[in-house]
């Protein structure tokens, strides 16, 4: 036998070598294609055609809140149960499950913020072929066709959307387990699929996370978009491979209507998109248009998931704003972050020790660059045992945090969900003894390999586990923590180095469910429990700040996300725009990418351009891989230091606007970072597939320089008849044009929309907290009709008092008839600020003879002013009024 082993040696080695190189190669070969995913292959083999499903109209039940109807598959006689709800706010929910499954199928909990309120449905007509229902108001109708089964939603004479029109509804029902070879699921195949047709639609967006263009591409002949949270090492750009997070929400848009589809399923999911115009050239489309011979453009979408049920929310818009509000009413809005979290973050894997932290902190002061947060990656913990500190490198974490507090700065330390298996480690032994670990299929604790070595994975789907986890953030539990320490959840896809596709085995067990059923929501739960911990430690007073890499629908409620381990390459800089825009469209506004790129080392030019871009993206954090050379902002010579300082300062000056945008996002679900486009200019088809520029809120258009060696950029200024003002030069430009802007290394092309008022704090200090009481400068950009309006939101910047005690200031700033005024928008609120209005800059103004400040008590005073005739800029000197009171300024 010894001889046998010896002889096998070379063969075995060869086999191992193939395996090892296979699983660590930096290419897509690591990850499954649809063909390699058995259920996807099976489902995709099904081609459009006559659906075997038939609606059994005699089973119809219509109550005040819902309609139920049985469907039968005429091939195998298995029955399904269709539930249909008309939801308040112009949405329709369609649920399809087995009528009598052998055991319950997984339905995703904890994503919807409540049981969505319904509206009554009424039956308008019915015959043996189907029935027509009224969808509440308007002229919306739902047509149920019996054979084959199909649903159409119509408004007037127009079909908005059809389900199963291509006959791709497929439901693999639970069967007695069959024990043939290759079936991994103990239940046998359980996948589901459904198709949607969108007549009149040529543009669909969303379903992040993919490193791809904003406008989704058709997948005919290629791979479907995949949604399966994965730790992808050195991800590739411009393809539909799965990344760290998954939000199964797709938006469709045409000049007539915006709609959304929310496929509530947390299992591995694939999305196919096809279009009848995709293959046509622009010329061909023009020809069709001119000849009027074209068929209606149409996009067809097909969703395939490995398990669970079909539960889809059809958000009928009709405007982008409506769709955002509809989705927000289902899954909640962006968490309102502490103001400081919107400032600049300095991160690196790793800041080595307390001295290093102190030196970097000092470096920012020496070079007069503001920052709010310094971050510690995995090396800070004692042997990657999270919630602990390396005793040699960070012997006095509290003193270190106090030192930062003295500068009014903060820190983030990483806490990942893989727990080192080590009986002397409290976190591990408690989780084990409480039975909180995810189990393997044989009932033991699931173990996998991650940063600390052999690790367990807490079952965050268990509410008791989450409550315990949250309690670990209490100041007396998390030793060395303080009020200014916040948290970062990485690797929460979850990442398992020795697992299939670097993640957890699908047959791992969470209570009654298999990991396969809920994989995509695991990361959401990690961030949820962590954010809850940060809230609890302050007795519910302070707002949390938690960054996550993995996410799902609803993750916006718990903090920020970033686009994971990108690279220091120009294309990676460019892709940050569509990646964050896509996330914004489906609720996650607090998005950012590692400034400078995580892997590799950026050239000074790329680093500067990345700072300039990141300064205008919601989550603004520089980060770098352990093996890269240091790249703090002052390490590239005085010129580059100055360029980075200026970019960061622009961010800090705009913090009042950022804060207000997040307040808005939190209140309404409107994205912070928007596609210039179609969100604000839904009729302007030029904007439909643009993703090299974006709007912040409605009023700032940013076209960052993302080309190496750029001498100029061409920005598209939307809005015929509108005007835009360059925020640096105050030069006025007309909307509805492509504008070529020459650029230098210091250029960050940003434009303020005529008709808007933006508050800034131009006194930039070393951290945002230091700027709390500083005065505001108002930038009033007049529309061609000499009108402008904006808002001013102020609160304490870090507690829930704005919500619980209504302690905030929310004001409308409006300019009309040569009068600028500040009026209270929230009469029930109360907050006192020390901030005042130090300057008002009116762009596009004419020269007044006199400027009068009027207070509500009748007091009047003359304001001094300065008029720059060349740019038509009027600057009012020192109105001096408190930012929280009513006032009026009249130009005469």
């Amino acid at each position, binding site marked *: 036998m010894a*001889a046998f082993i010896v002889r096998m040696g070379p063969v075995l080695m060869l086999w191992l070598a193939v395996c090892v190189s296979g699983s660590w190669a930096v290419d897509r070969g690591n990850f499954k294609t649809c063909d390699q995913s058995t259920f996807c292959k099976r489902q995709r083999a099904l081609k459009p055609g006559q659906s075997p499903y038939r609606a059994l109209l005699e089973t119809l039940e219509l109550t005040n809140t819902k309609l139920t109807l049985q469907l039968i598959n005429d091939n195998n006689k298995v029955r399904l149960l269709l539930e249909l709800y008309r939801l308040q706010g112009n949405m329709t929910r369609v649920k399809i499950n087995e009528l009598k499954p052998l055991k319950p199928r997984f339905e995703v909990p904890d994503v919807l913020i409540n049981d969505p309120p319904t509206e009554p449905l009424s039956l308008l007509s019915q015959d043996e072929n189907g029935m027509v229902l009224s969808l509440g108001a308007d002229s919306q109708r739902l047509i149920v066709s019996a054979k084959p089964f199909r649903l159409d939603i119509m408004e007037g004479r127009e079909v908005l959307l059809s389900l199963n029109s291509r006959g791709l509804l497929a439901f693999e029902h639970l069967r007695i387990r069959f024990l043939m070879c290759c079936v991994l699921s103990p239940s046998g195949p359980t996948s589901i699929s459904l198709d949607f047709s969108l007549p009149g639609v040529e543009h669909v967006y969303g379903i992040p996370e993919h490193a791809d263009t904003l406008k989704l591409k058709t997948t005919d002949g290629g791979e479907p978009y995949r949604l399966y949270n994965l730790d992808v090492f050195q991800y590739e750009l411009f393809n539909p491979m799965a990344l760290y997070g998954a939000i199964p929400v797709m938006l469709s848009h045409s000049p007539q209507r915006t709609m959304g589809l929310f496929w509530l399923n947390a299992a591995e999911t694939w999305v196919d998109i096809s279009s009848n115009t995709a293959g046509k050239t622009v010329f061909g489309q023009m020809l069709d248009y001119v000849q009027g011979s074209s068929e209606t453009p149409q996009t067809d979408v097909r969703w395939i998931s490995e398990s669970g049920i079909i539960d889809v929310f059809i958000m009928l818009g009709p405007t982008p704003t409506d769709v955002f509000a509809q989705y927000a009413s289902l899954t909640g809005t962006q968490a309102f972050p502490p103001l400081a979290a919107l400032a600049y973050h300095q991160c690196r894997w790793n800041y080595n020790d307390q001295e290093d932290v102190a030196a970097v902190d000092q470096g920012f002061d020496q070079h*007069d660059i503001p920052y709010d947060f310094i971050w510690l990656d995995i090396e800070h913990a004692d042997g990657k045992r999270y919630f602990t500190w390396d005793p040699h490198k960070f012997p006095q974490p509290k003193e270190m945090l106090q030192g930062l507090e003295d500068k*009014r700065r903060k820190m983030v330390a990483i806490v990942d969900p893989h727990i080192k298996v080590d009986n002397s480690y409290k976190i591990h032994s408690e989780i084990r003894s409480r039975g909180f670990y995810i189990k393997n299929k044989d009932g033991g604790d699931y173990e996998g390999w991650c940063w600390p070595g052999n690790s367990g994975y807490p079952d965050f789907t268990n509410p008791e586990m989450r409550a315990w986890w949250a309690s670990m953030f209490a100041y007396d539990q998390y030793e060395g923590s303080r009020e200014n320490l916040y948290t970062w959840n990485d690797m929460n896809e979850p990442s398992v180095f020795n697992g299939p596709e670097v993640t957890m085995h699908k047959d791992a067990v969470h209570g009654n469910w298999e990991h396969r059923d809920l994989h995509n929501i695991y990361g959401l739960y990690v961030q949820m429990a962590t954010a809850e911990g940060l809230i609890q430690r302050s007795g519910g007073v302070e707002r949390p700040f938690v960054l996550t890499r993995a996410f799902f629908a609803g993750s916006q409620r718990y903090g920020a996300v970033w686009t994971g381990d990108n690279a220091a390459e120009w294309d990676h800089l460019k892709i940050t725009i569509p990646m964050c825009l896509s996330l914004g469209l489906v609720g996650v506004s607090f998005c950012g990418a590692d400034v400078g790129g995580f892997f590799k080392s950026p050239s000074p030019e790329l680093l500067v351009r990345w700072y300039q871009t990141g300064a205008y993206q919601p989550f603004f954090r520089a980060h770098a891989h352990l093996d890269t050379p240091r790249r703090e902002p002052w390490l590239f010579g005085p010129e580059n230091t100055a360029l980075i300082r200026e970019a960061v300062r622009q961010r800090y000056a705009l913090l009042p606007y950022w804060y207000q945008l997040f307040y808005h996002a939190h209140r309404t679900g409107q994205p912070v970072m928007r596609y210039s486009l179609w969100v604000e200019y839904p009729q302007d088809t030029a904007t439909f597939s643009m993703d090299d520029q974006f709007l912040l809120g409605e009023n700032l258009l940013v076209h960052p320089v993302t080309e190496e060696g750029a001498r100029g950029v061409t920005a598209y200024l939307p809005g015929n008849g509108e005007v835009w003002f360059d925020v640096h030069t105050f030069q006025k430009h007309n909307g509805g044009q492509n504008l070529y802007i020459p650029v230098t290394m210091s250029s960050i092309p940003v434009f303020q929309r005529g008709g808007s008022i933006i508050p800034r704090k131009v006194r930039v200090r070393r951290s945002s907290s230091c700027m709390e009481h500083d005065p505001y400068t108002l930038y009033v950009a007049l529309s061609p009709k000499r009108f402008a309006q904006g808002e001013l939101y102020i609160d304490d910047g870090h507690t829930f008092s704005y919500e619980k005690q209504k302690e905030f200031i929310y004001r409308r700033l409006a300019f009309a008839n040569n009068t600028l005024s500040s009026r209270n928008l929230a009469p029930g609120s109360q907050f006192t600020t020390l901030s005042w209005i*130090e300057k008002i800059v009116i762009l596009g103004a004419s020269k007044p003879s006199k400027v009068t400040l009027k207070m509500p008590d009748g007091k009047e005073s003359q304001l001094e002013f300065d008029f720059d005739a060349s740019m038509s800029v009027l600057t009012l000197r020192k109105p001096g009024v*408190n930012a929280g009171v009513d006032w009026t300024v009249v130009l005469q």
Partner: protein
Amino acid sequence: MSLVKLLLLMSLALVMRAGAAVEIQRPRGVPLSKRQFYEEEKPFTCLDGSRTIPFDRVNDDYCDCKDGSDEPGTAACPNGSFHCTNAGFRPAFIPSSRINDGICDCCDTTDEYNSGATCQNTCRELGRKERESLQKMAEVTREGFMLKQQLIHEAKKGQEEKQVKLTEFQSTKKGLEEKVEALRTVKEIAEEPEKEAKERHLKAWEEQKELIRMEKDKARMAEAFLELDDDADGYVSVAELQSHPELDPDSDGSLTETETQGLLGGADKVDTTAFESVWSSIKGKYLLESQSDPPAPVETPQEEARDLGSDHDSDHYPEDYAGEDEDEEEDEEDDDPEEEEDKAPPTVRTPEKKEDDEMSMPPYDAETQGLVDAAQKARDDFDEAERALREVDDQIKSLEKEIGFDFGPSAEFAYLYSQCYELSTSEYVYRLCPFNRVSQKPKFGGSETNLGLWGQWAGPEDNIYAVMKYDHGTGCWQGPNRSTTVKLTCGKETVVTSTSEPSRCEYLMEFTTPAVCQEPPSLEEALHGHTEL
């Protein structure tokens, strides 16, 4: 509205060196050197001359001047700077963005006059500490500088000594070179007669060996003849010869009469004289009856052969190879290439070898031995001289290398040469061997890692000897080769004071040495050189 009421003017109680207190009025944040530009009751002109404003707009918390000069005491201008007098300590400028930001920057607390921050005036304490540390530093510098002078002196001496040594070595080398040449000639002369005598001796021995062999052959022939001549008639007949089948010329297994007759040169029988020619043709095959045991079986390296064969197979039939098949394989192998070897009996060769071994060359005669001994001595003398020359050469090279090093403008770093300095941290022992290498060894087992080999002086242009650079150390996984930057600071002792790895595989070491101590300024200058009063 809580418009900040600002103190336009402030009273400053300044402690003069002489101890007298004087009150000087000036706007907040203005250094004394610029006081004349801020005259109360007169319009203020921005220091860049860009515009003139009424004096009440100086420090009114609104930025009027592009250069920030109208707001020296508020945070209104983005580019302003604030002057703190810091009586008792050093005066300083801070960016005006640090005024009233809630953080105490000036030790005299003047930057936080309206932020609610409670700052303690720490100037006196800081001043005291600074004086102490300056004093200490001055002391260190002074002593260090003295040590440095000594080092320079020693280095100079050392350098001179080395130079002298070098010169010595060089002349020694010259002598040795001559000696080597002379001895080479002696050696060559001695080797000529040695070679001839040795050749002679060898030739004589060859001739003698041939004679012995011939005699042995004759004896064997005689023995064979006696053996063959069974009837002792003085003739060897055909029948008698046929009793030796090994003589079969066609190797067909039978020695026929005709064949035998052929061997006997066509005759029926031969006498001793005629047998001589017969013997010469049969002696190769003839087996003396006294030694006619069958040849020992050849030891074929069967097992080895099998192993080779099976190795080859394993790739193709790893699972099938099991007990039963073993026999088959063996059989096959038996038919295989060893066949010929089996049939080549080694018996003929073996005795011949023995013969050679038995006959060894006789010792040299006295005359030859004398020549050999003389030559050997000449060779030994030559080798020794050559070795001595190499040694001197090495010493010269090493000296030249040392002299060639850049040990600083006055060779003050020379004393570090061939020394090593260690620093022990919680995990590692770091070792700096100046002008040679830097290394790191884990405290608790594990091998040493090379953190870089001497590269060059790498300080800034005006102070190049402030930094040493060591590079091309052990490579990092997916990273660069390790390198170390050593920063030198003035100290009495020569020690490594700290090490760190600010960036992956790029180490930083701090090292104190008297060699970088500069001539100290007077204490007075150090303490008051920058004060404005």
